């Protein structure tokens, strides 16, 4: 039994280690606030959201599969939340069945029978939902899921389980087993045989004794334990256990599997519940969201309208500023311009939208179309680096080198003020060589920089193979926090910021 509400052909893997470099994404794209919004305060939802966001899909078909399931969830939020609650309750119920002497098959068997009773009730409830609401769901994922429930858990089967559960509640009764002589003449291959619960009648017992007294032709030999023979009774229990072990182990495996099914259902719904939570936050403040149009890697880099920084809007009162970007066949976007002009926010909004798109979620934009990437990497200048001047370029380069180690064709690399820790000449030269090689090897690069030498050299070589953007600054020097197309300008606007910050002191500037 599989839920398959995340992938068409496999389970969601909650044990997978996050890909190397995932911490960089979390930090650079401020993912914490998104995890928090999706969790709605539930640490489990947060954990699943984090894993799914950082483990994006690579195929458009897989993305569409998940998008359509999420669309169903958005259309039927109450039903989906109820199914989630059933899964949680089944898991909690199992946890509260006390298991004592779990090393012994009879103990294990007893517990498994209890747990299966609980699971049967929850499975029946799930069946009820499937029967009542299957018609309201459109997505392939949900339809297959509901059909599976109906097929696997029909009434006859649920009844057969009930019968076995009743029969297996035997304890300390007469037990009949067959066996063979194994290694060193010890008994082996113990099998329980029917009849299970039949006690010998008094008469049968007398007959047995009689046979034994006559001897010779009888083939039944009896041993009887002394009442005080504690070690003997222990050995006897072990013998019973050997017979019961296969049944106990089968039932324990069944409970484990059904538990896994509920855990998987919970995990796979958790992502969708997280998306519902996030969407409710955004619609409450009238931020637009849309399902992205996902195309192949070569077809498009990104074409967006009203694209805003998701983590920014989650951390502020009003709405975030939306931007546009059209880069179809180009594989390089270079953003220059005013400091504090919204360049980093813009870069982050692209990264976040790409990340959300690649895990099958909606994106923070009015309209969004983008090519799927094999992976997403960020190389942002780090605040803490400022403190330690020495070895800073070393640190940047070693981080970059680690990224190169993990790059595969079709990956997207977001660079934010990278290699600016040395002088402009050197920084530009290093960046030029790296970016040139990345593009040649099929990567997409979005680069925020104030290295004019760098931006200008790419512009000069071929202004059409890349998109050049600038953080907008009005004639009066004010920033709009919009990013617009335009060739690189030779000055950044640090002086502006300086002027504003030091205004009260009437500081000098050129």
């Amino acid at each position: 039994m599989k839920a398959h509400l995340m992938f068409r052909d496999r389970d969601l893997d909650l044990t997978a280690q996050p890909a190397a470099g995932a911490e960089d994404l979390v930090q650079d794209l401020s993912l914490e606030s998104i995890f928090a919004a999706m969790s709605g305060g539930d640490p489990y939802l947060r954990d699943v959201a984090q894993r799914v966001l950082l483990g994006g899909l690579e195929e458009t078909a897989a993305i569409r599969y998940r998008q359509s399931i999420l669309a169903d969830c958005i259309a039927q939020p109450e039903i989906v939340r109820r199914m989630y609650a059933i899964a949680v309750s089944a898991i909690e119920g199992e946890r509260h069945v006390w298991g004592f002497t779990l090393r012994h098959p009879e103990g294990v068997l007893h517990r498994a029978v209890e747990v299966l009773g609980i699971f049967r009730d929850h499975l029946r409830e799930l069946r009820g939902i499937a029967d009542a609401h299957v018609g309201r769901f459109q997505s392939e994922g949900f339809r297959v899921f509901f059909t599976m429930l109906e097929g696997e858990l029909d009434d006859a089967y649920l009844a057969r389980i009930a019968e076995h559960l009743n029969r297996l509640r035997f304890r300390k009764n007469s037990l009949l087993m067959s066996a063979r002589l194994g290694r060193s003449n010890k008994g082996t291959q113990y099998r329980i045989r029917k009849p299970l619960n039949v006690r010998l009648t008094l008469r049968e017992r007398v007959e047995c004794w009689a046979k034994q007294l006559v001897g010779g032709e009888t083939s039944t030999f009896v041993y009887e334990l002394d009442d005080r023979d504690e070690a003997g009774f222990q050995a006897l229990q072990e013998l019973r256990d050997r017979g019961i072990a296969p049944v106990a182990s089968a039932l324990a495996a069944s409970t484990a599997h059904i538990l896994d099914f509920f855990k998987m259902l919970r995990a796979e719904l958790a992502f969708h519940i997280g998306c519902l939570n996030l969407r409710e936050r955004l619609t409450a403040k009238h931020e637009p969201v849309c399902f992205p149009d996902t195309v192949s890697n070569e077809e498009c880099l990104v074409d967006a309208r009203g694209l805003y920084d998701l983590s920014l809007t989650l951390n502020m009162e009003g709405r975030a500023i939306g931007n546009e970007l059209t880069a179809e066949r180009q594989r390089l976007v270079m953003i220059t311009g005013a400091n504090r002009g919204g360049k980093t926010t813009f870069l982050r909004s692209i990264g976040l939208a790409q990340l959300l798109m690649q895990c099958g979620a909606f994106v923070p934009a009015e309209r969004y179309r983008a090519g799927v990437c094999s992976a997403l990497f960020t190389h942002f200048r780090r605040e803490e680096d400022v403190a330690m001047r020495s070895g800073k370029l070393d640190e940047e380069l070693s981080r970059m080198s680690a990224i190169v180690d993990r790059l595969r064709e079709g990956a997207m690399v977001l660079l934010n003020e990278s290699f600016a820790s040395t002088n402009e000449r050197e920084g530009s030269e290093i960046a030029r060589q790296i970016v040139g090689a990345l593009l040649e090897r099929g990567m997409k690069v979005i680069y925020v920089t104030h290295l004019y030498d760098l931006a200008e050299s790419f512009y000069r070589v071929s202004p059409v193979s890349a998109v050049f953007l600038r953080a907008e600054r009005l004639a009066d020097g004010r920033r709009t926090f919009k990013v617009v197309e335009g060739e690189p300008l030779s000055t950044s606007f640090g002086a502006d910021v300086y002027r504003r910050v030091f205004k009260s002191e009437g500081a000098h500037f050129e």
Partner: protein
Amino acid sequence: MRCSILFDAPDERLLTERQESPECFRDLNLDQIAAAVTAGREPYDLLPIFHLPLTSAEAVRYRHQVFQDFENPAVFACIASFSERMRGVRAALAETGKLYCELQKQREHLDTIGEYCESVNALTRALTLSQLNSSGLMRLRQYLSEYTVSMEFGSLAAETDALQGDLAAIAYEVRIDGKRIEVSRYGGEPDYAAEVLETFAKFKQGAVDPREFAFRNRSAMNHIEEAIVDRVARVFPEIFSTLARYCEHYREFLDPVVAEFEREAQFYLAWLEYLRPLERAGLRVCYPEVSAGARSSRCFDTFDLALAHRLLAERGAVVVNDFELRMPERIMVVSGANQGGKSTFARLIGQTYYLAGIGCRVAGREAALPLVDQVLTHFEREEHVETLSGKLEESLGRMRRLFERATPSSLLIMNESFDSTTVRDALFLNREVLRRVTERDMLCVCVTFLDELASLSEKTVSYVATVNAKDSATRTYRVVRRPAEGLAYAMAIAEKYGLTYERVRERLSQ
């Protein structure tokens, strides 16, 4: 009949085997190698074989032939499996001695003999089908083919087989009812476990491990098991009386020649198993051409075996090196970069000569070496000597004792000898020692930071530990034959991280 696969002339071994290892073992890491090779084979007491250098090129070739036969995968597999099984036979005999239940002992003894017969038969069959070229193994095959058709072995095997069949066919039934146990022939009742298993089979799929119950498998029986097997024996009396007579008759059964072969085979198995992971990692090993009194030496693509094993375990790369002494050279002087692999180079030379002298395959693509009678090592020790003069005295004392034992067929390895004194003293002392080496016409490796030693005479040849030409900080661990030098190199920082245009393209092309 005697047939040894270690020694052509059996008297040779009487001279030699000794428990304590030669003095050079520790310095050359031969102790680690021998320990790793013999690990898990302690009962065979193999170390003495490693402690005993061979005294003729013919004795070396005798082992090479046997090694070559062992390299045939079919031969290796059949001998390895024979040895594995014989180990089981010995262990079982030891275990049986500890048991007290007679019915259990008898069965153990029967099965152990069964295993012995099968192992010997399997080995004989396999060797008969194999193409053998070594006189050692051909002699053994001859012996086995006579032994296995002997009257004595034939009846042992036949009786064992018949009894095992009878015991395996016994099927009985145990009914447990309270404190009462009844034992009888199995009467054909249906299997209830199978029925339960089938009902719950659909929940068994997936990743859930079936619960395995650990039953304590004491080798001894408890009194309940004893009581049961005693009653089983009464249900089937004929079979068990035959078993008792059989055990009485075949108390001793191991053939002494077979047992000795099993031990000697360990030497070959162990060594080939030790080399295998290295070969799998792409390193080369070879049969050295060994001749007494050769005036030149060469070995290409060789490496330190102990270090290579450690590096492979840590997934590090193993660097290979060449060494060569052309007429009239007798002394290799190794100088160059600190931590550049000089000691390792000296060690691997010592290992190669020593191991070639006990008939082993050695590290390297190709090797031709004279047979040395002993490898003498002079490594600086960090031992309990307080003062510098005390230390020098201790060091010189050791050197003198080495010269007392040295012959023209000896190899002396000096590793930074006297380097803790002043340069002037070190130069003087090393020159003196090398002069004596030359006088006695010994072979020598001298690791030193004193460049001058490299060009003392036509008998010396210089080897240099190199650094990366583009990055002096990177050690290559390559030691090459060239005049001593002392260069340092500088390189660009991006190159260091592999982030130039060329390097990034290259890295992304894989």
